[in-house]
């Protein structure tokens, strides 16, 4: 927060010390990443939407830099700098400032400068255990500074993928829907296209080109595309190659001849997305939804149940956990579990803490492959105001 009293500063510092001691006692090494980060990594990871909320600037040497919009990517960069093999197991924690432009104007609930305290855990192959421990540790930390009446809200992108899989969608449609999941409007449009006329888009393509493409033969198809461009006097320019265009065209060709998606499969996807309620019963509801579906999301559901059991073992009261299938939609880089901790009296768009699994992030930050990663961050100003608000 921008204008703060020395008293409040001291209160935040004291709170941070308690949080960090909970983290370090659980085996997380404290790190202090740089505030100024190369802009490229963030913008390539998160895309242009967060750039509009990131303070990007050019230094006198012309390098594009930014004030870190979060601390997760900087911690990934520390890990990569230390370990030639990114799949080295490690647990980190941090407490520091992050910066975000607030398009509607900065206020106390949405400050442009705020302090995050958080944990990251890399390359742990015991997936659900790592997830449950991460969530439980965050809850323990917020409790240790006095937030007793939290609720935990969870979502699971792994379950969503499993449902798409169970709906027997072709790979390319799963990919489309998976990417569209983050954007409810686009998702609805795409699902409608698949159930009504999957070939709609190919109608805009030149018929004489489609005729010359050879399904399954990228090389011959590329030759056909080049011949088409040539005969129409269109020059091949830019970085995107003819091979990339051909791959996309061949998908469109497959769509043109594809049978529309079964209405019952679409209904199953939609009823999954409507599941919302107590986490303890959501698993059963999803299992019922998929009864009779061959090769249903067995493994993903097992993981869901195992994670809950591990949370219960860690002493977390399952009655305080809610699940919603839609949750995770606004969060760009998560790949599996997502969770948020909220406190009574705080606005719904102001969670106290949030986190989840993001196996693809390390690769975006420069690793040669995906690395298992779970983490979470606490919005410390919100935590402090939730705790002091509850006391007063």
């Amino acid at each position, binding site marked *: 927060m921008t204008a703060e009293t020395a008293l409040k500063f001291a209160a935040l510092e004291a709170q941070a010390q308690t949080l960090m001691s909970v983290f370090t006692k659980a085996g997380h090494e404290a790190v202090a990443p740089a505030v100024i980060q190369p802009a490229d990594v963030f913008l390539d990871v998160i*895309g*242009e939407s967060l750039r509009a909320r990131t303070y990007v600037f050019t230094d006198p040497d012309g390098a594009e830099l930014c004030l870190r919009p979060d601390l997760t990517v900087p911690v990934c960069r520390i890990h990569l700098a230390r370990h030639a093999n990114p799949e080295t197991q490690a647990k980190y924690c941090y407490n520091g400032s992050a910066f975000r432009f607030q398009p509607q104007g900065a206020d106390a609930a949405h400050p442009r400068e705020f302090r995050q305290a958080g944990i990251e855990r890399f390359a742990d192959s015991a997936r659900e255990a790592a997830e449950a421990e991460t969530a439980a540790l965050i809850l323990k930390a917020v409790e240790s500074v006095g937030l007793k009446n939290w609720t935990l809200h969870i979502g699971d992108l792994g379950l969503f993928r499993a449902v798409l899989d169970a709906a027997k969608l072709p790979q390319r449609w799963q990919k489309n829907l998976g990417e569209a999941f983050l954007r409810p409007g686009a998702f609805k449009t795409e699902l409608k296209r698949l159930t009504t006329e999957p070939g709609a888009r190919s109608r805009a*393509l030149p018929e004489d080109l489609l005729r010359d493409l050879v399904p399954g033969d990228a090389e011959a198809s590329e030759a056909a595309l080049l011949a088409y461009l040539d005969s129409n006097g269109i020059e091949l320019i830019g970085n*995107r190659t003819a091979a990339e265009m051909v791959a996309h065209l061949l998908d469109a060709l497959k769509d043109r001849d594809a049978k529309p998606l079964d209405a019952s499969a679409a209904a199953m996807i939609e009823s999954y997305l409507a599941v919302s309620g107590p986490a303890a019963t959501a698993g059963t509801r999803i299992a019922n939804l998929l009864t009779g579906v061959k090769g249903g999301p067995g493994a993903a559901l097992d993981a869901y149940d195992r994670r809950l059991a591990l949370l219960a073992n860690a002493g977390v009261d399952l009655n305080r956990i809610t699940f919603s299938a839609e949750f995770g939609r606004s969060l760009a880089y998560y790949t599996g579990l997502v969770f948020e901790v909220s406190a009574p009296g705080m606005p719904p768009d102001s969670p106290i803490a949030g986190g989840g699994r993001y196996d693809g992030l390390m690769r975006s930050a420069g690793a040669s492959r995906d690395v298992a990663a779970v983490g979470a961050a606490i919005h410390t100003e919100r935590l402090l105001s939730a705790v002091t608000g509850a006391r007063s």
Partner: protein
Amino acid sequence: MSKLTLAIPSKGRLMEQTTDMFARAGLSLRKTGHARGYRGEIEGLPDIEIAYVSSSEIAAALKSGSVHCGITGEDLVRESMSDAATRVTFLKRLGFGFADVVVAVPACWIDVATVADLEDIAVPFRRAHGRWPRVATKYMNLTRAFFAEKGFGDYRIVESLGATEGTPAAGAAELIVDITTTGETLRANGLKILDDGVILKSEANLVASNVAAWSPWLRNAQNTLLVKLNAI
């Protein structure tokens, strides 16, 4: 009594067309002070003072309220403020300075005709090239707002202050957002406009700043000017 400050373009086609329009309304503009000065007046409208300002700065002056009214392109106004609806009022479209702000991609992208197609190719592009497709533009805010409304976020903006239409062929960007009037420059650079890629159909506007210091007297002067321009 204070005067209404009207900012008009200080050079180029927009200045000529603005002067012509005033002439057609029976108003002649005269520079005051020395010949190359940046102030002027309108004969017969003593309550209005002219400020000659470069067209891109007119938008900033309207935004801050340092002028009461200005004549400039709608594209520049919308680009320079995210809250145009509250900061300014578009009083009159002036019928010159036409320019469409458009999304254009290489014409050889046979498989891409709409923003939805861009969404389709962004992830495979990233897989092949290790980064999101880059959009060269000087209209960063219009671009972001347009793509956000379409639900497209998998791109990077590279700021381009000149010769934007050449960036795809040069390999500095994959696509562009730029202004066009006839589309000829785009075609010459091997580009095509997306079917749903018209972001804004812009023209010169008489624009009032909502945050300038107004008085009933000055509003009266604004209305007198509008009546004259509407009579053309």
